[in-house]
């Protein structure tokens, strides 16, 4: 039995695992976005807090993924929870850093004009700075997504969902004819997802960026 025949037989499982993978990554991204953007918005103006926030997010990224998933089992148990939290932590740095860069690249004259016309700090952030930083933020999201798609495969090691389960199954049945097929299914699934996500982000970036600041 060849790889494609095998896949034709097992495609419901492959599709199921792929869907789980997508949901897992999206959860991690959403949570990271909710944390990273406000932290960036609160800290980007002053050097010390900004350095601290980016520094911590940077350190998290250096923790080996296996170790991080493992460490999270103690407080969160097995399954989806530690996987989502780990992915969130990994996505923090790219999103936070790009948000900071985006916010800092807004022309100070634009912000000053806004203040001079009586927009409040919050209004300036919401209606001026974040929309202007958005193309850079969405690039951060894109990078984070690519990172998370790969790392999410390790979720299987903590009983989490996703394409990692196919790879893990392949590894544990090493020596059988299907071992390679399973691993290949998991890997190809991730690669295909990476391409599709990138396409989606390109479209999203185009439709959510004001015509006035589109490159």
């Amino acid at each position, binding site marked *: 039995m060849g790889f494609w025949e095998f896949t034709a037989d097992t495609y419901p499982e492959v599709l199921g695992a792929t869907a789980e993978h997508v949901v897992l990554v999206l959860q991690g991204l959403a949570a990271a976005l909710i944390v990273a953007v406000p932290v960036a918005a609160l800290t980007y103006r002053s050097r010390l807090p900004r350095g601290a926030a980016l520094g911590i997010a940077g350190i998290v990224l250096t923790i080996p993924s296996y170790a991080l998933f493992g460490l999270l089992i103690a407080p969160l148990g097995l399954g989806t929870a530690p996987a989502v939290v780990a992915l969130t932590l990994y996505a923090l740095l790219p999103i936070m850093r790009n948000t900071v860069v985006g916010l800092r690249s807004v*022309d100070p*004259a*634009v*912000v*000053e*004009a*806004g*203040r*001079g*016309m*009586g*927009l*409040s700090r919050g*209004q300036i952030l919401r209606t*001026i700075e974040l*929309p*202007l930083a958005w193309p850079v933020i969405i690039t951060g999201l894109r990078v984070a997504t690519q990172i998370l798609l790969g790392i999410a495969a390790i979720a299987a090691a903590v009983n989490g969902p996703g394409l990692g389960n196919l790879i893990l199954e392949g590894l544990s049945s090493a020596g059988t004819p299907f071992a390679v097929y399973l691993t290949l299914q998991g890997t190809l699934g991730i690669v295909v997802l990476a391409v599709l996500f990138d396409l989606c982000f390109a479209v999203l970036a185009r439709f959510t960026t*004001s*015509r*006035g*600041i589109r490159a």
Partner: protein
Amino acid sequence: MPESPPRPMIRLTGLTKHYPGQAEPAVDHLDLEVPEGEIVVFVGPSGCGKTTTMKLVNRLIEPTSGRIEIDGRDVTGVDPDRLRRGIGYAIQQTGLFPHRTVADNIATVPRLLGWGRERIAARVDELLAKVGLDPQTYRDRHPGRLSGGQQQRVGVARALAADPPVLLMDEPFGAIDPLTREALQEEFLRLQRDIRKTIVFVTHDIDEAVKMGDRIAIFGECGRVLQYDTPARILGEPAEGFVADFIGNGTNVRRLSLTRLCEVEVSDDRPVVVRGSGDGGCPTAPGSFALLVDRDRRPLGWAEPGQDRPLPLISHLGPEHTLHDALDAMLANNSDTVVVTDQDGRYRGTVEMATIQTHLHRVGGPGNEGGPVRGGERADRSIGTS
């Protein structure tokens, strides 16, 4: 109607701003009053505290000490955002929101004030027309697709959007080519004649100050105002060495730009020929020229006896031009006469080189009180000189 002294709209008392970590204060015990409906220009060298003073007025910068009153009210008691919504603000870099259309940019303050959709749309179009931009063409554009001059027009329109009584403008016509800049200045002065806002206008160009200002405050080091007076008097009797140095040479020529042709007596002793009326009005003396006009008395050219074709009229000037423009036209045309029309373009008379000389002599140099101020107004007192 007797002219009562205008009421001060902005009053600064003992205003001081000391930035932390700076040896000298940026603004030092400044006393200044800006009369209602006038343009007061802050002019002076770079770093002398003009921008700082202006930003103290709308509390973009908080003062170290001193009082700021607008329309008799101390601004420190007002919520700063509320205060700023009532004060127009335009800056050199324009600070237009690049992700918003021209219309949305102009609508910023009206939206903050909760105006209705239709009222805002009408106001946007009205303002675009006022600053010389066709609403159809420009309202839906983004600032990135405007020229520098157009952006500054939009910046001015945005500052005027909610019809604030007070306007703060920091080098609003800076950073553009001299021609566009002059056009913008002219248009803005024309606009101001209708809207009569109280305006603080910052520049470091003394020519712009003379042109735009009803009064000029000349700033020296550390935010001190060295002289606060009408352009005519500042040019006529510059205070202290620094002011005289800052104004530089050419005060006589500069003074010419304070007088509009509508305030000048023109001579009408040139013979005039109406085209198509036969030879009746042709000049008798050979070698002298008559002005050829059409039936509406619009100037067409110079008619010379014995010549079929009139000589073209190189330029003629309207009532809003100044004696400076007249002199310029004479020099450009290599002539000692320039034709002046009324606002409908009808021939009014000519200004001669001699007229200019007499005028300069009459308005006089140092020691002469006052002089005609733009728009025929006279500012008869010096207020709040620091």
